[in-house]
C-alpha cells in the first residue's frame, strides 16, 4: 500500500517536473531567433579588424551557453548529450587564432543549424505538454459549467456543447483524466524533444573520437605520474624499511661477534635484539608486498580482499557484495586500491562510528560504494587521497563521485567498466 503511494507521488513529481521543463523550453526557445540574428550579424561583421572576431567570439559563447542549457534539460529527460566542442588550447587564444578555432569547429555550425528547428520543436512540444494538463485543470475547476450557465453555449471533453447541468458536472471527472494523461505524457514529450536536440547538439562520430583522444591523453599522463610516484614510494619504503633493518641486523650481529669472548651476556642481548630486528624486517616486507599487490587479492579476488581489509580496519565495516567473478588483474587491483583509499579516508578523517562497502556488478560495470556515518564535509581538492582514487580509476575509464554534506554521511561511489570472468568454483561446492 505504502509502496503504491510512493510510486504515485514519484509519478506525479516526474510529470510536474516535465511540465516545468516544458514551460522553460518554451521560454528559452524564444531566445533562439535573436541568437540566430546575432550570429548572422557577427558573421557579416567578422572581416572587421579587431571587433569582428571579438563579436563572433562573444556571440558563439552566448549560443553555447544556450545549447548547454538545452543539453542539461535533455539530461534531465534521460538523454545525456555530451559537449562536442574542440577544447580550447591551454594557453588560450586571441584574435585570428580564436576566430579559426570557432569557425573550423563543426559543432559551432551544428549549434547554429539547430537554432530554428529547435525553436519549432521546443515551442510545439512544450505547448503540447502544457495544454493537456491545463485543459484538465479547466475541467476540474468546473469552469465549463459556469461558462455554460453564463453563455448557454460551451462544451468540454465529449460534451459539446454542454446541454444539461449534469453534463456540466461531468467535466470534473473528465478533467481528472485529461490531467492524468497530460502528466503521463509530459515526460515522454520531453524525451522526444531531447532526442531531437541530440541530433544536432551531440558530438559527431569524429568529434566523439577527438574528445576521447583528449581524455585519453589526460588520463595517460595521470597514470604515468601515479606510477612514478608509486615506484618512488616502494623504493623509499625499501630503503628506509627492510634494507635499513638488514644493515642494522648485520651491525648488531657483528658487534655481538666482537663481544662474545669478552662479554657473553652483552653478546647474548645483542643477538636477541638481532632476532627481533629480523622479525621486524619481515613484517615490513610483508606490509610492502601488501601495498604492491595484496596476496589475498591474488588468492580471493576483490570480494575476499575487501572483506579482509574491512576486518583490519579500526572502524567497524560491513561488506555487501554480489561480485563473484574475477576482473582483469589491473582492473581488480585498481578497484581494490580505490576502495582501500576510500576506507583509509574513513578511518583517518571522518570520525565515523561505522562504515559500509558495497560491491556490485551489473551491465559490465563494477559499482563500488563506500559510505560512513562520520562528519562529512570531505573535500576532493583537500587531500591527495580522493584525487588519487580518481586518477587510479581514470586509467580504466572509471569515475568517482563524492557526496559529503557537512554533518555526513559521506558516500563515495566509484564506477569501473569491466567484464568479469566466470567465478571460480568454490571448494565447498564439491565439483572441483
Amino acid at each position, binding site marked *: 500500500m505504502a509502496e503504491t503511494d510512493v510510486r504515485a507521488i514519484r509519478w506525479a513529481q516526474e510529470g510536474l517536473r516535465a511540465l516545468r521543463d516544458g514551460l522553460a523550453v518554451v521560454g528559452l526557445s524564444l531566445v533562439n531567433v535573436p541568437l540566430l540574428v546575432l550570429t548572422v550579424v557577427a558573421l557579416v561583421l567578422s572581416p572587421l579588424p579587431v571587433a569582428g572576431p571579438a563579436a563572433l567570439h562573444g556571440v558563439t559563447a552566448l549560443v553555447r551557453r544556450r545549447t548547454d542549457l538545452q543539453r542539461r534539460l535533455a539530461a534531465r529527460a534521460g538523454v545525456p548529450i555530451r559537449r562536442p566542442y574542440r577544447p580550447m588550447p591551454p594557453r588560450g587564444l586571441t584574435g585570428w587564432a580564436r576566430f579559426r578555432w570557432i569557425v573550423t569547429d563543426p559543432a559551432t555550425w551544428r549549434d547554429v543549424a539547430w537554432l530554428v528547428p529547435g525553436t519549432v520543436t521546443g515551442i510545439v512540444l512544450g505547448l503540447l505538454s502544457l495544454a493537456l494538463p491545463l485543459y484538465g485543470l479547466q475541467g476540474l475547476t468546473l469552469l465549463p459549467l459556469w461558462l455554460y450557465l453564463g453563455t448557454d453555449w460551451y462544451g468540454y471533453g465529449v460534451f459539446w456543447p454542454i446541454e444539461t447541468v449534469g453534463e456540466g458536472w461531468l467535466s470534473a471527472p473528465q478533467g481528472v483524466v485529461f490531467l492524468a494523461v497530460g502528466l503521463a505524457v509530459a515526460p515522454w514529450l520531453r524525451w522526444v524533444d531531447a532526442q531531437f536536440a541530440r541530433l544536432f547538439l551531440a558530438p559527431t562520430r569524429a568529434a566523439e573520437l577527438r574528445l576521447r583522444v583528449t581524455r585519453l591523453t589526460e588520463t595517460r599522463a595521470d597514470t604515468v605520474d601515479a606510477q612514478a610516484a608509486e615506484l618512488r614510494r616502494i623504493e*623509499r619504503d625499501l630503503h*628506509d624499511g627492510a*634494507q*635499513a633493518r638488514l644493515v*642494522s*641486523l648485520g*651491525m*648488531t650481529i*657483528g658487534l655481538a661477534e666482537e*663481544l662474545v669472548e669478552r662479554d657473553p651476556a652483552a653478546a647474548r642481548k645483542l643477538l636477541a635484539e638481532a632476532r627481533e630486528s629480523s622479525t621486524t624486517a619481515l613484517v615490513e616486507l610483508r606490509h610492502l608486498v601488501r601495498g604492491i599487490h595484496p596476496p589475498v587479492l591474488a588468492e580471493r579476488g576483490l570480494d575476499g580482499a575487501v572483506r579482509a581489509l574491512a576486518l583490519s580496519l579500526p572502524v567497524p565495516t560491513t561488506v555487501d557484495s554480489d561480485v563473484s567473478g574475477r576482473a582483469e588483474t589491473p582492473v581488480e587491483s585498481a578497484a581494490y586500491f580505490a576502495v582501500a583509499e576510500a576506507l583509509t579516508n574513513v578511518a583517518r578523517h571522518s570520525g565515523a562510528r561505522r562504515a559500509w562497502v558495497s560491491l556490485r556488478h551489473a551491465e559490465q560495470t563494477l559499482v563500488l560504494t563506500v559510505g560512513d556515518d562520520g562528519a562529512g564535509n570531505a573535500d576532493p581538492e583537500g587531500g591527495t587521497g580522493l584525487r588519487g582514487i580518481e586518477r587510479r580509476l581514470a586509467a580504466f575509464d572509471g569515475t568517482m563521485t563524492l557526496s559529503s554534506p557537512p554533518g555526513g554521511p559521506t558516500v563515495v561511489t566509484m564506477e569501473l567498466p569491466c567484464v568479469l570472468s566466470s567465478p571460480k568454483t568454490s571448494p565447498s561446492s564439491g565439483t572441483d
Partner: protein
Amino acid sequence: MRVVIAEDLALLRDGLTRLLEAFDFEVVAAVDNGPALLPALIEYRPDVAVVDVRLPPTFTDEGLQAAIAARTEVPGLPILVLSQHVEPLYARELLTDRKGGVGYLLKDRVANVGQFVDAVRRVAGGGTAMDPEVVSQLLARSEPLAVLTGREREVLGQMAEGRSNAAIAAKLFITEKAISKHINNIFTKLDLPPSEDDNRRVLAVLTYLNS
C-alpha cells in the same frame, strides 16, 4: 677520536653510535638531516665524519653535498660516506679536491665490525676506503689504465679499497716486496711525482676513479 655521525634513521644512527663508542670513538654529534650536518662539521671539526648519502629534507644526495661543502671549508676534513648503493660517480666527486681522508662504503660493510672500524680509522688518518663494489665496477671498464698490467690494476684496486702493502700482499698471495715494485711501477706509469707516499696513493686512486 672524535666523530660526527649523520644518519636519518634512528635505528642506524643509534647502532652506529653504539658501535663506534664500543671501539673508543667519541661521538660528538649525531645529526639526522642535511641542513644540520654542515654547521655540525664546521663547529666540531671532528677527526672523522660518518655520513649517509641520502638525508632529509630532499632525500636525494644531501649528505654527499654537505660533505663536499664541508671539505671546501675545512680542507682535508676526513669523511666516510655510507650508502645503500654505491655509485663510482659519487666517489669521484668526493675525491675531486685531490686530498685524502675519504671513504665511500656500502652500509652493508658495517656488519663486519672490525673491518668497518679499520676503515673509519684509515679515513681519519688521511687514507681512502673505497668499497670493493665501486672498485669492481671500475675494474670492469678501465681502458685509460691500459698502460698498467693486469696485476698492477689489481694492486691499484686493492689500494683504492684502502689496503696497506702488507694486506695487499696477503690478499694476492705475493710478497710485500713484489707489491712495492708493482706500486712503484703504477706511480711511474701514471706519472705521479714523488711525494709523501700516502698522497701518491690517493692520487693513484683518483686517477683510477677518473678512468
